[in-house]
């Protein structure tokens, strides 16, 4: 009986790795298992070596494992590269014969020939279906009912019934012709309905639920998956997704649509965000409720576009010239990504400022199982939006709480004047008066305190583990998953996940960290959260555990480093 099973599909990009691993994952998720996947691909379209990992377990898992139980290499290069990572009791499913005793000898050619004949096709036409052979081989080794696999295949090819039938015929053949010498006896589980998604889906659904009506974007890895997902559902939920000429247009359009009265957002990654910072500053100055979804990837410059990193925290914190209020929220998993998306729109509209939701490639490209979201508790708050006739209207009126009523074009008596120059209450820019300047700066900057007061504790930080533990890890974003997986194993650590980066929740953080030995774990070079922590609280971390080779944390390296008797000031993790 094994607790978790790790499958890897490896091969040239474009050879169906994605299809194979996803189908497997989906089948296992339907069984009620928790499934976690990790995709490592090149920034090219076809041909370069890539690999996907699928980890399956009856308990919740949030990181990939270095251990491979079943390896499905789609070419000889992948055998060479990955066979050494395969556990000694593991199994390789490969079409050609191998010297390796772990080779699961499935009669590929015969199976395909049988099915080809049955459907009156040439053998070569079935080449693309080799992956199905491997897939069925794997599920058979796990002892899965073949009908379950066939059901998912049928759904995948819903629009191409013949293809579905052929693939399913292959499944039947594999199940009848292949008698595995090794099998994998996974601890059983009971069925629970779960979604198999990544954060681009979670954010997308969050945007729909939040009532977003306008999203502008410019294609970029890994952010555009989210926009492309939204394009698929915009017809059904009535909103506009606009692909722009560049990221400058993307954010300017989102800002303008927000000032026209729609909930608006844009999504991007590092290079694109760099082009957006002038307009971010503008959104701060003009008190525009716009939400920016920032999917970090390995930088600097074009960097490694399909690889992971949390390297842009400090940049997001101070991007844009001049000083203006902004809110930054960093969800740590897909579930948080969904709820935080809605919260981000609420904060943006209540306080009339730009909100950045900071995500990363690991969240964008790692699919895993998530319980369906609880929609009953969701609330929408549009703040002081004025949608009916008014008079004596001033867009930037000084109010007790610093937030002015917000009219939009089309409202009788509510003409707006939005200005990126310093302005008076009416939005006009010709004062340059020193006192007005001070009042307007105070008005805008004061919002940070208001946000800090209003936002609930859970949105700011989350604490995991025993409160009495002496050692507390601080971390953020997708690093949370691998850390939690290890906490379950190593009881002496707790984790403080910082979720709101700006305004920084000093009070909540101090509550959990004062007097503790603090370890920062982040996926960047310098340890940006550790710096921020010191700037905001004066607290010094005793060790910075960092990783910056473009790959997310592996379960094993996390166990390894945290099991050390003494942590160095800087620990660099390098599993790949």
């Amino acid at each position, binding site marked *: 009986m094994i607790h978790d099973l790790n499958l890897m599909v490896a091969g040239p990009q474009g050879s169906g790795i994605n299809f194979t691993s996803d189908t497997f994952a989906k089948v296992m998720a339907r069984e009620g298992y928790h499934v976690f996947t990790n995709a490592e691909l090149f920034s090219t379209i076809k041909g370069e070596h890539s690999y996907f990992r699928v980890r399956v377990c009856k308990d919740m898992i949030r990181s990939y494992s270095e251990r491979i139980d079943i390896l499905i290499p789609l070419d000889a290069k992948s055998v060479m590269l990955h066979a050494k990572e395969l556990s000694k009791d593991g199994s390789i499913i490969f079409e050609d014969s191998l010297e390796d005793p772990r080779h699961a000898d499935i009669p590929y050619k015969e199976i395909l020939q049988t099915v080809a004949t049955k459907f009156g096709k040439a053998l070569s036409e079935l080449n693309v279906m080799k992956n199905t052979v491997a897939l069925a081989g794997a599920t058979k080794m796990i002892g899965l009912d073949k009908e379950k696999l066939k059901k998912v295949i049928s759904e995948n090819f819903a629009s191409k019934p013949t293809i579905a039938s052929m693939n399913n015929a292959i499944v039947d053949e594999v199940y009848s012709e292949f008698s595995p010498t090794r099998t994998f006896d996974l601890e059983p589980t009971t069925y629970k309905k779960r979604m198999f998604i990544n954060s681009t889906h979670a954010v997308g659904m969050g945007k729909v*639920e939040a009532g977003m009506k*306008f999203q502008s974007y410019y294609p970029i890895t890994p952010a555009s998956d989210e926009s492309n997902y939204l394009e698929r*559902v915009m017809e059904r939920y009535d909103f506009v997704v606009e692909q722009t000429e560049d990221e400058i247009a993307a954010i*300017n359009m989102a800002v303008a649509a927000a000032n026209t009265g729609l909930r608006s957002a844009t999504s991007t990654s590092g290079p694109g965000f760099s082009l957006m910072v002038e307009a971010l500053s503008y959104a701060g100055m003009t008190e525009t409720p716009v939400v920016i979804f920032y999917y970090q990837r390995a930088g600097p410059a074009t960097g490694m576009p399909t690889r992971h990193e949390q390297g842009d925290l400090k940049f997001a914190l101070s991007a844009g010239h001049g000083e203006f209020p902004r809110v930054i929220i960093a969800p740590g998993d897909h579930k948080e990504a969904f709820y935080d998306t809605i919260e981000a729109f609420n904060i943006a509209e209540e306080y009339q400022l730009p909100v950045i939701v900071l995500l990363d490639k690991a969240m964008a490209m790692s699919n895993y199982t998530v319980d369906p979201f609880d929609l009953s508790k969701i609330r929408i708050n549009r703040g002081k939006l004025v949608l009916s006739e008014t008079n004596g209207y001033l867009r930037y009126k000084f109010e007790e709480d610093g937030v002015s009523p917000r009219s939009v074009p089309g409202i009788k008596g509510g*003409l707006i004047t*939005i200005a990126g120059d310093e302005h008076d209450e009416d939005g006009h820019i010709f004062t340059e008066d020193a006192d007005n300047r001070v009042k307007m700066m105070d008005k805008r900057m004061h919002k940070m305190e208001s946000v800090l007061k209003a936002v609930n504790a859970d949105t700011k930080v989350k604490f995991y583990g025993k409160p009495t533990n002496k050692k507390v890890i601080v971390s953020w974003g997708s690093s949370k998953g691998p850390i939690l997986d290890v906490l379950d194993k190593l009881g002496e650590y707790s984790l403080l996940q910082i979720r709101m980066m700006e305004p920084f929740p000093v009070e909540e953080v101090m509550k959990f960290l004062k007097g503790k030995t603090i370890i920062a774990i982040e996926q960047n070079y310098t340890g940006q959260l550790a710096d921020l922590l010191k700037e905001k609280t004066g607290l010094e971390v005793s060790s910075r555990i960092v990783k910056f080779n473009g790959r997310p944390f592996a379960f094993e390296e996390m166990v390894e480093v945290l099991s050390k008797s003494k942590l160095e000031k800087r620990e660099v993790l390098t599993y790949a």
Partner: protein
Amino acid sequence: MLSTVNPPAKPQSYKTNVEIDWCPGCGDFGILNALVLALQELKIPNENVVLTGGIGCSSKIPHYVNVNTLHTLHGRSLAQAQAVKIANPRLEVISASGDGDGLGIGSAHFVAAGRRNVDMTYIVFDNGVYGLTKGQASPTLPYGEMPKSIETENLKFPVNPLFLGLASGFTFVARSYSYNIKHLKETLVKAMKHRGLALVDVMQPCVTYNNINTKEFYDPRLYDIEKEGWNPVANNESEYKQKIPQAVVKSLEWGDRIPMGVFMDYQTETYDQKLQKLVPAYGKKNYVMEPIESSGKPLNDVTELMDSFC
């Protein structure tokens, strides 16, 4: 232009009380006056008009017109204006830019705007210089010229806004002149009535920095192409393709005679019409007024979406 205003409301004055800080004699005044007259003629309720500006002397015009205004960033007037119209197609949207704003730093948006054909009007204040930053060469300054504000003669060939507008796909392309308020007002009215993206390139002398392209320069040169028999209207795609090269020929004229008037007026699918192909309810519902919640509870329900992932 706004299809119907129902019920027609009586607009308030289209001028604000804000003190105008352009240099005395600046061509910008003429554009402001013509725009106000055009709005008066069209009688669109003030609250249904949105005027955007970039950054520059010209781009301050939003503060002087009593409508909804977005004073945006340098070069971003057109990008923001299009989004306003996409967000709420019931609005009448006008965008103002300097020649630097619109044809230099903003020219990627200029080219892309032609691809959308959003139903709005874009006014370029064409003075050959960067007024607000003290008179450096703008993209329309002719080659070899050296207005008094510039250290060295201009080494760049000028952008021709009309030619570029035609090449980019603007469906209405016109030139007018800030000291001919009647012609300018009429041109603006036509531009606003046009369904689709309209470009109005306005010769606008900068009296402080550009001592070459002055009133004295333009007055004897400008002539009205429509008076000389040019019919800019293209009724269908083949007429459009046939008229484009002719309009290009006219746009290339510069020297003793400088043409003004409407060079092209072609009606084809606008962006709001096109968006309806993807989102059938688009434009039928008013997204701005459409509630997204009821007592704080979201009106959208993603259950269906969640199920699609199970």
